[in-house]
């Protein structure tokens, strides 16, 4: 078996008396899309925050391609190839679309202790940012302020920025949330197109999207992984059906 790109072992996070993450084990194999589903409040976003180092877990270890991340701050984890998108979009609203992307490229290129050259005339940044935007719905909107973007465009930009960091593993926190049908379909296509370039951990409520994209699915309920397996295994799993999917056919 190849070395997993992400390997989480025994992760625990407590908020006071509440167990938000309850001994979670999770692996993502290179090239796969691993979906993480679960009801609201199951602790999915909390888990992503711990993987990124934004929250400190109480117990457990996280490894990226065999390298332990536990002692590293967020910035260094990103440097090693971890990137995330935010469920509630978190962008730089006073900057344009291309500024946002170029800034991610700039940070990836190395330190920013450069005080003289005009950053907006810097072709090494602008050209790469343009390339990243090419072919996305954002291409014609490159010089629009982020504050003026629609929700769907902001979601798209979240993804583009994450890709600008050239990640090995992408943590996607509900990329379809709040999107209309057409936009969701576009997002699914975009993610499918990325599948060979980057591994993904996909947190999503939209089951159509999950079943369309995922290679494997894990189900998180009350901070615990109650099941993990292929799409079909999860569909058939009786425990999952009662705990989360609910009996009946309204799902598929």
């Amino acid at each position, binding site marked *: 078996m190849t070395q997993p790109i992400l390997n989480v072992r025994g992760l625990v996070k407590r908020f006071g008396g509440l167990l938000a993450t309850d001994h979670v084990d999770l692996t993502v194999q290179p090239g796969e899309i691993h979906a993480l589903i679960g009801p609201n409040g199951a602790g999915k976003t909390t888990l992503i925050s711990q993987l*990124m180092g*934004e929250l400190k877990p109480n117990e457990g270890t996280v490894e990226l391609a065999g390298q332990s991340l536990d002692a590293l*701050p*967020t*910035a*260094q984890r*990103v*440097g090693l190839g971890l*990137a*995330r998108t*935010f469920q*509630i*979009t*978190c*962008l*730089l*609203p*006073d*900057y*344009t679309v291309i*500024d946002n992307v170029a*800034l*991610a490229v*700039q*940070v*990836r290129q190395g330190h*920013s*202790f*450069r*005080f*003289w*050259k*005009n*950053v*907006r005339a*810097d072709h090494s940044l602008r050209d790469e940012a343009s390339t990243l935007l090419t072919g996305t719905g954002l291409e014609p909107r490159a*010089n629009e*302020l982020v*504050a003026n973007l629609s*929700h769907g465009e*902001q979601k798209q930009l979240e993804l583009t*920025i*994450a890709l*600008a*960091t050239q990640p090995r593993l992408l943590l996607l926190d509900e990329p379809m949330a*709040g999107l209309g049908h057409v936009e969701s379909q576009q997002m699914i296509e975009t993610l499918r197109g990325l599948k060979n370039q980057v591994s993904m951990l996909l947190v999503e409520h939209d089951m159509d999207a999950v079943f369309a994209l995922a290679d494997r699915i894990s189900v998180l309920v009350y901070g615990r992984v109650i099941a993990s397996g292929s799409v079909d295994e999860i569909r058939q799993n009786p425990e999952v059906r009662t705990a989360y999917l609910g009996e009946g056919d309204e799902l598929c």
Partner: protein
Amino acid sequence: MNSETSFKRPALLAAVLIVLIALPTIADATGYSALTSLATRILIYGIAAASLNLVLGYGGLVSFGHAAFFGIGGYVVGILYQHYSLEEPLFGFIPGTNQMLITLPAAILISGLAAAAIGALSLRTGGVQFIMITLAFAQMLFFLFVSLKTYGGDDGLIIRRTNELPGLNMRDKHTVYYVCLVITAAFFALLWRIVNSRFGNVLVGLRQSEKRMAAIGLPAYRYRLMAFIISGMGCGLAGALMANFLRFASPDMMHWTKSGELMVMVILGGVGTLFGPLIGAAVFIVLETTLASWTENWQLALGFILLFVVLYTHGGVQALVLRLAHRPENRNRFSESTMRRFKVLERPLRVRKDARRSNGKR
């Protein structure tokens, strides 16, 4: 685009520069020779306020202790001068000096070191603690200098003569003004480069969202610290110039009200704009001078003006003027590009923040 547009209006800039160059002549010709001194003070405070604005406006860090660096700059000049005139080296081995080419870099260096120490500690926290801590450290330095009887204690240090510059007669008020003008111009050119550089880019990014910057892999602390140091150095430079101009350095330069005044200048002119603080300094000093000539209780008026500006204008005097110009009946007088420029300037930090919040809720 959020990039600084002021330098892209070369005509306006050149006009202002010409007026500033001609100012001493005009002042003498019209009999208002005090105008030159007033303008010198405005330039110096403009440097200090613009330095503060680098952390406050561009970086989003509310420092309430920048007078400390202003005072340190002043004291470097004063202390070096005292050792020069007494002809006894500082600590037994550093000779005193009255040469501006040495005292200004020394002031910048020392205030930069102080900013590094204070910033390294203060930036471990954020938000309201940061405000309180920077204020407290400045107060600490204030007490330190009050207790240094060797350097005048709370009476301060008198510098008998303005520092020398080779080939210039620094006893002439006009010369001092022009020296300050050249330094101010150079300083703003440098600041303009900085805020539009890669460094400025991450600094402004951090103000908008620290979380986003971490998610693209930026370690925030070191950049904020660097901004704090640069900003402290700028204030130190201004303090050194002020000590030269007033021929006096005293603990009052680092009193907490001075920190407050610098912040007032920044907000009067417009937070996070390149020339806003200079405009703010001019407004503040003219206001102070005018009010003080009318009434002894000028601080009362200043307090009310400040309240009004904070509560009712969004983005200071610069934005107020632009907003007035932006009224519908004036709309067709401006080109499309000018209007767009207004739009960016018109959106003060606060409004942008609100926009962000509502974005998040969607």
